[in-house]
């Protein structure tokens, strides 16, 4: 990781009444890496991720994307800047088709008067792109792009949400607990998906409680504790027990690891 970080946060503070969720938290994401963010419940990792994805606005601190300071007031602004988030609840509309879901909020309209005056959607173009994206991620066992999302299995839905993020995320993809609700086989498929997205050159922020999954795919692990970044470790040099020990405060991290 010699290059400059793509996304950085310095001294983020977020208070909810008397509770300090973020206490001068730092964050660095480098190009092309998978950065796992782990932390105990209440450590503030959700607040950190929400601040980066635009769902909350921090009280203090600075976020820089590509070296330029950014201040997102909504998830849509973060999206426009190229940061896509796969939410834990997936944010899909069950009754709508796969293609409609992938393009929800950024539909493609027909060229010419049909699109301009009748505001007609360009379904063929949307379906073509959705299909291309799903096949690229090896998800074309989903046969009919026009079928409602509610007829898909949990893994397939996750696949649609990941494909949507990968298709539109130009800078960063954030994934919140992507394997939490899945079975063994489907989790494996989603982990492969994550690596596929990485191969496309997009850096990924992975929030997960599943240590084996984190250690399997992450290049670096950001450990969050008491509202701030405790340390960043290399998963090849530490064990899962070490990570859990740092996370829960049972063990102090070595000073050198912080610089990693």
């Amino acid at each position, binding site marked *: 990781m010699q290059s400059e970080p793509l996304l950085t946060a310095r001294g983020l503070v977020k208070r909810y009444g008397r509770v300090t969720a973020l206490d001068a938290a730092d964050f660095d994401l480098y190009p092309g890496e998978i950065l796992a963010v782990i932390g105990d419940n209440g450590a503030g990792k959700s607040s950190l991720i929400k601040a980066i994805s635009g769902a909350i606005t921090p009280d203090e601190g600075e976020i820089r994307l590509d070296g330029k300071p950014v201040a997102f007031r909504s998830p849509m602004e973060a999206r426009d800047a190229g940061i896509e988030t796969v939410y834990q609840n997936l944010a899909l509309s069950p009754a709508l088709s796969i293609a409609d879901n992938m393009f*929800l909020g950024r539909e493609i309209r027909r060229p010419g008067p049909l699109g301009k005056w009748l505001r007609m959607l360009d379904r063929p173009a949307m379906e073509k792109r959705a299909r291309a994206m799903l096949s690229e991620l090896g998800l074309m066992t989903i046969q009919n792009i026009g079928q409602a999302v509610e007829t898909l299995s949990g893994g397939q839905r996750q696949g649609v949400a990941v494909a949507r993020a990968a298709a539109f995320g130009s800078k960063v993809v954030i994934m919140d607990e992507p394997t939490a609700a899945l079975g063994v086989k*489907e989790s494996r498929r989603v982990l492969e998906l994550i690596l596929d997205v990485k191969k496309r050159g997009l850096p990924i922020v992975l929030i997960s409680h599943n240590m084996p999954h984190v250690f399997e795919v992450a290049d670096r692990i950001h450990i969050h504790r008491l509202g701030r970044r405790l340390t960043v470790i290399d998963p090849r040099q530490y064990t899962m027990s070490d990570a859990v020990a740092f996370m829960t405060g049972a063990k102090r991290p070595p000073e050198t690891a912080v610089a990693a």
Partner: protein
Amino acid sequence: MTEASARGGQPQEFEKVLAGSDTAVAQFESHDRTAVERLQHFLHSSPAAVPLIVLIASLAVFAFVIGSRFFSPFSMTLILQQVAIVGIIGAAQTLVILTAGIDLSVGAIMVLTSVVMGQFTFRYGLPAPVAILCGFGVGAACGFLNGWLVAQVKLPPFIVTLGTWQIILAANFLYSANETIRAQDIEAQAPLLQWFGNNIRIGNAVFTYGVIAMVVLVLVLWHVLNHTAWGRHVYAVGDDPEAAELSGVNVNRMLLSVYVLAGLICALAGWALIGRLGSVSPTSGQFANIESITAVVIGGISLFGGRGSILGMLFGALIVGVFSLALRLIGTDPQWTYLLIGVLIIAAVTVDQWIRKVAG
């Protein structure tokens, strides 16, 4: 775990056995479906099919029982005339119910706008087109009030429209002083107000402009709901507002636009109501809200939002019209009509619940 542990997508120890398992993770249609399952899937993907089948079946049964007195161009188009107002109001109701809301004030908005159109012409002497525009303005304002209370103040739609229903209806009586404008006066001085009462005759078939307006409105809204981003957002908001918001839909603006549009459609119904009655009567259309909800429910649109087709609402309204006319021709007590419609409502919701299980 050792350093060599499962880097770069290699399976972990406990997952090695997966190599021997079926590789198709996200397989669909894994087994041959039974006829019942296929039916369930078909109905799931075409929500207007059930009311259409019921409509055709009831037409066939009554045509067989009553004969040509019922199954004639005149009677068929009479049904259309009788459901025209409910169909237009039902279109407004459909939009609101698709967003998982409900609008109890639709009938009141319709009556108030028709009174405004009439009184502005006769009390203030405004030209009829201006008075009609004022009626649409009042409809939009009522819709905006509903939408603002639902979207911004975050009150439940049922409560909001229960309140505005009473407010608008009372305003209607207070403003009109419960005074009817006679049909002859309208015909002599402002025939434009009765424009929707004009008709086109093809043989014995009579199509009033009100009927044509209803059909055109439903077709336009069907197009908008299915083939524009706005329409897809209506479904997304009704389905799961949080997911829609996170996917980039401005939910509040969406809800506001739906209620305002519903208000405008109610104003259209108010205008068509003058054409249907000939006169402007502040006491008309008392049950339009319940009738529109009935059409929507029999039409297979889910009261929980996000599911159903506006064409179903039209079929639902027509089913009610067919039952009313047929039972009247048979000469039964009109209460039988209400009884059967009650049964239909419960049957429609039962079928809806069964179809939804396809997702489970």
